[in-house]
């Protein structure tokens, strides 16, 4: 059963140096505040997993929390590049960043396999591309019925998955709606899980398009209103497009970025702002 905890206690309990950690949320419902808490707690040597590492991963990478990134698209959506990510890959700053690179279809299926208790997934993917030449977690597999060759990718089973959702009830059942990405799969694939929510309510009113994760499939729930900012929570907030643009400036310069990290560490930046 999920325990309702503070964000800092939940991150302290669940996230350890060296862990494989997935903060998921496909543009919508990105658990940014939890990422900041990881920076604040100075976690190190994490293997970060995420289909679309965007600014929250740029922040974690720039703050030196990560030694490896498993991903399929790393950019500032609608704006451009991730400068901290590029700096880490191109110049090893602040620490070298190993990368394991897939496509979205491959990553989504890796989570599905992880959630399904299978060691691998099968897809029609990567054929003809250079990705199998640089990523050793892409292999051919033969259909035992037709003889056709397809592509296999291994399951992802993070030590910890963190997602953001709209609501939880006091028993820790979690409800989310709108674009739900691979959040359910990430939670189910992980050994431990934390869900930050906009609010904890007495009862989860059913919502069109809503999905419920039962309390017994989640370890911790933390109430963090606005915890997805500058991403959004449908029904609670709008995407802050201006912040994504502003991040381009903050992140372009190492010194300016480090001042931002200091603000996070001092507790001044509680949400992305």
């Amino acid at each position, binding site marked *: 059963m999920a325990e309702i905890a503070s964000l800092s206690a939940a991150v302290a309990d669940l996230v350890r140096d060296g862990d494989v950690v997935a903060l998921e949320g*496909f*543009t*919508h419902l990105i658990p940014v505040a939890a990422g900041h808490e990881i920076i604040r707690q100075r976690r190190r040597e994490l293997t970060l997993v995420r*289909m*679309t590492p965007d600014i929250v991963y740029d922040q974690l990478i720039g703050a030196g929390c990560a030694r490896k990134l498993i*991903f*399929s*698209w*790393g*950019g500032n*959506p*609608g704006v451009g*590049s*991730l400068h901290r*990510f*590029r700096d880490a*890959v*191109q110049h090893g700053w602040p620490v070298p960043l190993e990368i394991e*690179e*897939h*496509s*979205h*279809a491959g990553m*989504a*299926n890796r*989570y*599905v396999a992880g959630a399904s208790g299978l060691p691998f997934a099968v*897809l*029609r*993917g*990567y*054929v*003809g*591309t*250079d*990705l199998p030449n*640089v990523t050793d977690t892409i292999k051919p597999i033969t259909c035992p019925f037709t003889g*056709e*060759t397809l592509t296999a990718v291994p399951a992802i089973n993070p030590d910890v998955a963190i997602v953001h959702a709209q609501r939880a009830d006091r028993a820790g059942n979690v409800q989310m709606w*709108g*674009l*739900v*990405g*691979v959040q*359910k*799969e990430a939670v189910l694939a992980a050994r431990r899980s934390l869900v930050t929510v906009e609010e904890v309510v007495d009862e989860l009113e059913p919502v069109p*398009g809503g999905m419920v994760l039962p309390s017994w499939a989640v370890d911790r729930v933390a109430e963090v209103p606005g915890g997805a900012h500058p*991403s*959004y929570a*449908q029904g609670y907030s*709008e*995407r802050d*497009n201006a912040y*994504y643009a502003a991040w381009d400036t903050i992140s372009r310069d190492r010194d300016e970025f480090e001042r931002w990290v200091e603000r996070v560490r001092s507790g001044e930046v509680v949400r992305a702002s």
Partner: protein
Amino acid sequence: MSTYTADEMMSVAAARALSGGQRCFVGIGLPSTAANLARRTHAPDLVLIYESGALGSKPDWLPASIGDGILAETADAVIGVPEVFNYWLQPGRIDVGFLGAAQLDKFGNINTTVIGDDYANPKVRLPGAGGAPEIAANCHEVYVVVRQSKRSFVDQVDFVTSYGHGRGNGERERLGLRGAGPTLVITDLGVFRPDPDTHELVLTAVHPGVTVEQVREATGWELRVADELATTPTPTSDELAALRALKEASSS
């Protein structure tokens, strides 16, 4: 006739390539602009599919990202990301994959991964693959929209992120890929289509006021020009009005 920019010409030309009722898998940026413009002009029943999980979105403005709330709120159905790729893209249910590119080569291969020939030590680290490799593999055909320069239009991409026609001559079919691959490339200068036999991209149209020489200057390989080179019709005032209204609504 109103004046317009090369980018506007490109978006209008790309929008015109789409027709009503088609199912279109839309990348963000230039492809999304073109697809939404098509839906607001001649193809109102174009079905827009975004990898974030929105099937049949009908946004009133240009979304800033593939995950904007407007895409989910106006969709016929909202689904999880694994389902987008497994149930809808992979089986070949989508007519057109509409992609951008950082680098595009003579055979329509797309690079959005690294610039430079050492993957481990790239000159420029780009965002990576996203949904593009499987969009390029599994849609019935692929349209690419890209601003053209000698840097972006190269003889051979540094990294094949999304497979086009390989090194041509039917390589794509031999790999067992089901979709036809890139059948149309639209740039700010003109329009390219693959030669039916060699699959090399051939200039088939120039935009109004653009010379073949200008296109050649912006092409990183020895440009081939179609025997019957067309000129793209200029944007109509309706097209420009619709395009500007879409952009205005999104920035307000």
